[in-house]
């Protein structure tokens, strides 16, 4: 026969074990829920970051492609031609331009004293030479304008390209700065760990169950010893 203490100890042990199991199951469920929440949070943050980063990359890409399209050969050649035309006008003195076009009044202003009322044949020859000189001058100025239009004039190819690159570079820089900030914020979000559920009092329940088992085991041992003695 088992003594009452052993029976009570056994019952207590079983009860404690059941309680312990339920507590652990509850803890596991809470941990699962925490893990699920963490995964959902991380997924959401990842998606937000990816979308934000892609949008900012596209901003930078738009700036870069815009610059590149402005630097295409056709655009650059057109810009050079426009600048050459602008410079040709800007560099050519008005009187030279007028004389080159054959403006008689402009040409006659260049005649020396006494030539105005001289022989028409001689005067005509002098006028033709002045006009030819003006045309030659204009041709040379046009060549100068062409040379300048490739380089350091206001809207020359080099200055134009630098302006375009600088503008695009600032767009890219701003987008990149924001992307780095987004990445830093996302790294903080990634460092968030899932909640760790800890079973409070679990050890005491286990200790109680162990104590109960120990008491029940001791009682059972005594009972069995008595029974053996009776048989002996």
């Amino acid at each position, binding site marked *: 026969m088992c003594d009452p203490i052993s029976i009570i100890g056994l019952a207590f042990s079983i009860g404690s074990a059941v309680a312990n199991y339920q507590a652990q199951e509850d803890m596991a469920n809470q941990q699962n829920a925490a*893990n699920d929440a963490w995964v959902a949070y*991380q997924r959401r943050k990842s998606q937000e970051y990816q979308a934000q980063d892609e949008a900012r990359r596209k901003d930078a890409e738009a700036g870069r492609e815009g610059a590149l399209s402005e630097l295409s050969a056709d655009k650059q050649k057109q810009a050079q031609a426009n600048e050459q035309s602008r410079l040709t006008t800007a560099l050519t003195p008005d009187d030279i331009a007028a004389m080159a076009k054959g403006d008689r009044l402009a040409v006659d202003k260049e005649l020396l004293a006494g030539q105005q009322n001289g022989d028409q044949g001689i005067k005509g020859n002098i006028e033709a030479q002045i006009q030819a000189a003006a045309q030659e001058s204009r041709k040379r100025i046009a060549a100068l304008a062409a040379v300048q239009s*490739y380089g350091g004039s206001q809207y020359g*190819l080099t200055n134009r390209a*630098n302006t375009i690159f600088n503008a695009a*570079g600032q767009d890219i820089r701003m987008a990149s700065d924001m992307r780095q900030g987004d*990445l830093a914020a996302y790294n903080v979000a990634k460092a968030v760990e*899932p909640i760790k559920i800890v079973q409070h009092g679990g050890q005491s329940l286990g200790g109680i169950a162990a104590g109960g088992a120990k008491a029940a085991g001791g009682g059972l041992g005594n009972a069995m010893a008595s029974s053996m003695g009776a048989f002996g």
Partner: protein
Amino acid sequence: MGGKSGPSNNQMVQFEMQQAQEAKDKENLRQARLAQGKGAIDTIFGNANFGDDFYNKYTNANLDYSLPQLDDQYSKSKTGMNYDLARAGTLRSTMAGFAQGDLLKQKGINEAAIRAKADTDTAALRQSIASQQNQAYNQLYATEDPTVAANTAATSVAGAQLSQPNLQPLNAVFTPVAIGLGTALSAPYGQYSANQLVSKSPLGNGNIQQSA
């Protein structure tokens, strides 16, 4: 217990694997964009667009500005030499041949120098375009990698600078050969000698005037 937490752990692992896959996909896309972007830049700045035609136009503009100055000076020097030779009565002489040869040699050397300068200036233009291409590469990488953007933006300010060709008017490049110096001096010297002789004449003073 373990069975309950298994699926959730698995979900976390699945999430991390998904993240790894997304990172890989993203990197593949990035590399594809880099390759495509580099190809576009290579095309824009390649020979098909910025070929010899483009650079020859610049060379020719450079020469069109500089060579006429040389031709102008050569023409004036040649005309002056022609007059000098005629005045000296040496238009058809060995001296004339020497002077013409010297002038032509100077023209050749100066023209070669002008052409060499135009060629060097065109090389600078090529470098400028190459620098643009390099900037375009930098911006491509900056777009795809935010960490390099700041450096690229800072350096792009310096940018490509085309060293300007020498646009100053050409200095006098022809050194004329002294022509008819002896002939030109012979008349005054003859007058001087004659006057010396007259002053020593026992017939008295006098002055011999050079006839016009």
